[in-house]
């Protein structure tokens, strides 16, 4: 069993163990810690001087399905610089999410199912980020679909939770079906005999796909991946789902799983259908500006924290798309870094959102105020998370956004172009996100005394703070020293552009 | 038989009988009559088979394969009638009717 097989199977085995009767919380935390340590091990042993985009480290493969007429399917894993970052993200958020999950006794309903689902979602994410075979790359992501559905429907908040569970599930499954069509089409057009991504890239380097097909495929991939990432206008599942899902699920989904679509765009779409990408660039720019400005403004309106955070998570996807749209080392590296940063920051925000919800239930802004006085620790941590999300220097988000802006602005000095205008729009989006996040902070933690009862709302316990501190520490470390992660991202992204350079 | 007879009139007769049978199945409500119409359709098939066999001689004789097939069809038809009538009896016992339009408890 290779390291990565071990890594991916850990949460799945732990889930099985829980199903068979192992103590749920203990097993889940144990597995998450092990996952975290294993990812650290991988990160340390990753060779950062490795610039090949069509090759991986820690590779392992075993053929699982081979029949004439369809490409060979292998259960293959590997790490590139991008996936190192993403499994770090996954393992940190998984650990935080499991820590943030309520004790077994406090779970309303089947606590085994609760932890089991969390682990499945986490395992799916780890699998998707490490799979080097297109089939499993896709399949692992889908693994999380049903647990998410069950989690929201069973343990979610609010009267609409079942409806919400439906919305997210149908939306995502339709998105993935479209994606599936795109991916199969891609394999067919390449005439590939395997699903190994390396082979696909190699084929794309040779004959490649004709321009017309590229356009189609990229469109399918964009819509498919885009739906998973809540690209405007395929976003309406996200805000309610994140608002109503149980905290750990939101942390995992918004923080980690959502990045799958972006990873897919970088890993699959950019190297294999670059012409299609160029063809639809303007559309992508319009859509991402829709994310940033349209959804940004929409984010100002909600009257409750959870919904607002949900929308903000949609909005911030626009920046990652911008980085990808820039299609150069700076932009794409920034995008990868922002995936990490956004993952941690949104997970932290939602963890805190959950802590508030545990105490006060309804999160309508009007009910709150001055909480920083009675809940100083919560206030402080929330402040950190807020500033991280706003993109303040010192946090990883900022360190990621800067290369994105520069990447998107790169080029000659002849004047403005679509990409640059989009960047200007994105910069204005920074103002918007400051508006809504500071409003939220102001109305919850500052100002007049709250309407809610404070008697039975103690400040955060260490147990609650731990996941958030973990996340914020990650953000600060990377924010102060982005090179911690850039050392992994840079060579791989360079490799991508070495490819496209021929 | 008259050598001037061609294949088409025979096929036309069988086709018409087939259509008549189908029309009967669609038009009648009495299960028994519907069943008779189904028999007409099978018989039309038989006529077609025999006609073709007579027009495709094998070694100067009609193609007996088709005759055998007709034999099987007749057998199957008989079995079908038996089973069908048994069901009709069961239905009549419970509904006191053989009207198909009254058998509509399950829909949508």
């Amino acid at each position, binding site marked *: 069993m290779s390291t990565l097989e071990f890594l991916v199977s850990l949460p799945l085995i732990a889930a099985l163990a829980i199903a068979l009767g192992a103590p749920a919380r203990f097993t889940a935390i144990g597995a998450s810690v092990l996952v975290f340590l294993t990812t650290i091990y991988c990160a340390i042993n990753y060779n950062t001087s490795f610039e090949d985009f069509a090759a991986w480290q820690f590779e392992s493969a075993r053929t699982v399905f081979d*029949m004439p007429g369809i490409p060979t399917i292998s259960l293959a894993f590997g790490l590139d610089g991008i996936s190192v970052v993403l499994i770090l993200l996954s393992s940190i958020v998984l650990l935080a999410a499991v820590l943030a999950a309520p004790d077994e006794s406090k779970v309303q309903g*089947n606590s085994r199912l609760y932890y089991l689902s969390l682990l499945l979602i986490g395992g799916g994410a780890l699998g998707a980020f490490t799979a080097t075979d297109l089939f499993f790359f*896709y399949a692992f992501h*889908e693994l999380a679909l049903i647990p998410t559905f069950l989690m929201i429907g069973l343990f979610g908040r609010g009267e609409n939770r079942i409806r919400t569970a439906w919305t997210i599930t149908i939306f995502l499954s*339709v998105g993935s079906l479209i994606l599936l069509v795109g991916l*199969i089409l891609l394999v067919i057009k390449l005439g590939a005999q395997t699903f190994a991504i390396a082979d696909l890239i190699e084929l794309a380097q040779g004959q490649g796909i004709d321009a017309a097909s590229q356009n189609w495929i990229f469109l399918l991939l964009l819509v498919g991946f885009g739906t998973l990432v809540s690209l405007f206008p395929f976003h309406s599942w996200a805000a309610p789902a994140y608002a109503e899902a149980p905290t750990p699920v939101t942390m995992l989904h918004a923080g980690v799983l959502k990045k799958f679509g972006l990873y897919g765009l970088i890993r699959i779409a950019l190297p294999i259908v670059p012409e299609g990408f160029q063809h639809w660039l303007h559309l992508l720019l319009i859509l991402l500006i829709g994310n940033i400005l349209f959804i940004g403004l929409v984010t100002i309106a909600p009257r409750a924290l959870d919904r607002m955070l949900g929308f903000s998570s949609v909005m911030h996807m626009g920046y990652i798309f911008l980085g990808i749209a820039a299609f150069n080392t700076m932009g794409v590296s920034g995008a990868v870094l922002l995936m990490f940063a956004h993952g941690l920051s949104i997970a932290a925000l939602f963890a805190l959102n959950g802590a508030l919800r545990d105490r006060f239930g309804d999160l309508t802004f009007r009910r709150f105020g001055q909480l920083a006085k009675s809940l100083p620790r919560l206030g402080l941590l929330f402040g950190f998370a807020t500033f991280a999300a706003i993109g303040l220097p010192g946090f990883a988000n900022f360190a990621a956004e800067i290369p994105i802006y520069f990447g998107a602005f790169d080029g000659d000095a002849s004047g403005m172009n679509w990409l640059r205008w989009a960047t200007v729009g994105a910069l204005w989006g920074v103002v918007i996100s400051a508006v809504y996040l500071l409003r939220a902070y102001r109305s919850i933690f500052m100002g007049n005394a709250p309407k809610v009862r404070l008697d039975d709302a103690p400040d955060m316990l260490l147990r609650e703070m731990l996941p958030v501190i973990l996340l914020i520490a990650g953000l600060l470390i990377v924010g102060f020293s982005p090179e911690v992660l850039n050392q992994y991202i840079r060579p791989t992204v360079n490799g991508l552009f070495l490819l496209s350079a021929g | 038989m008259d050598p001037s007879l061609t294949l088409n009139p025979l096929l036309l007769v069988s086709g018409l009988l087939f259509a008549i049978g189908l029309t009967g199945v669609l038009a009648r409500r009495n*299960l028994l009559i519907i069943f008779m119409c189904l028999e007409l359709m099978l018989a039309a098939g038989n006529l077609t088979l025999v006609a073709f066999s007579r027009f495709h001689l094998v070694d100067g004789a009609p193609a007996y394969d088709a005759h055998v097939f007709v034999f099987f069809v007749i057998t199957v038809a008989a079995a079908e009638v038996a089973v069908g009538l048994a069901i009709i009896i069961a239905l009549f016992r419970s509904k006191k009717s053989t009207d198909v339009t009254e058998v509509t408890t399950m829909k949508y």
Partner: protein
Amino acid sequence: MQVYYLEFLVVALGLVMLMVDAFAKLQDKRSLARLGILGLGVIFLLLFAVQSPSNAASPVWKFYAAPDNLSLFFKGVALLTTILSLVMAIDFAPIVLSKIAPPDQGAHPQAGLGEFYALPVFVCAGLMWMASANNLVSIFVSIEVVSITFIILAGYMRRNVGSLEAGVKYLILGALSAGFLVYGFAWLYGITGSMELGPITEALAKPEVNSTAAMFAFSLILVSLAFKLGAAPFHIWVPDVYQGAPTPITAFLSVGSKAGAAIVTLRLAYPYLTSPVLSTKALAILAVIAILTLLLGNLGALAQKNLKRLMGYSSIGHSGFLIMALASTSYPGAVNALSPAAVFAYYIGAYLLMTLLVFLVLNVLNAADTGETLDSIRGLAKRSPFLAGILLIALASLAGVPLTTGFIGKFLAFKIALDAGQWMLIAAALIGAAAGFYFYLKIAASMYFDAPSSSDGAAIPVNLLTKV
């Protein structure tokens, strides 16, 4: 061992069961089913002992295809389905008995149950013959064995209005489709002058073949096969019959009958799809049928409340995927092209497992008299986490969630359609698959999200055999 012995062994088993039923005074006739299961299990093992034919000159090969993987696979499917249906039928016995009142005083209290176990065995033989039939005659007779026996089985619970109604509907529409089959076969014979598929294929491949007549015959045959597959617009019987028939029979029908029809369709479509003159039109018409089937089946299931009925619509939808694969065929395929036969095999294999799993659970619920509507499984997860978990996995597979067997089938179907560039088909399949997600998960939602309905919060007993 000669391959055609298998069916005779099955028939012999059925006869033994009838005899035992008639002459041995069994206390509990359910042991007949166990006997059947055992016998079929042995025969299933014998599948692996089949030799290539030694008597090539025997006339049997004019009617019966030499054993290949495909036919053996479908024979296996038939055997497995029958075994599982019998397993269900054991649980189902009390319901059957309550719906066929004991005839006379002094008669065996379980009178009529023996036949309920023996008839499926004969159906199994019919299905196995279908899997190998390569002659219009043998195709016709084996199809009729299966469908006439199914008529009996569907209407078996004659005091139950639903079952009787299912019997009537299947009877009339089945006979109608038989009429079309005969008429179509007659024309096919008239055009090609042969009953054997080999010569038919050769005849149809000739450029001088009259396409009007040939396509006329094809359409007539297709009507009948589409009926058997449950493909639009000849699918209308499916929901009603599925709902009305006894649950084990519904399960048997949904898998066994469909598998048999699938392989026959594959065999009969082959001459047309390989013919240079006819293939374009044949593919087009298949594509239209596939699109209609995908949409009507999957969308129809969306608002369905009765689980068996829902499975009926779902079965229509799955037929859509099968026909989609067939409609995306390109003969002669490239060396490495995906053959529809392979897709069929995988799809049916996966479909068998998950559908039977669903029906097994439904059957247990039925036997526990909890009803078969969506409401009746509310809160199942709380009452019986085991059943709920099993059902969830089966449903996920039916919906085609990756890493389940159902996904492979769907994946292959999509792959072959994409290979062929059938865009309309793909669009319909996408809509269908998406709708599938909804209605399968709807069942899951009912199990997990809703509170158990009223009093029957008790755990549901599951017998060991079913559990296995």
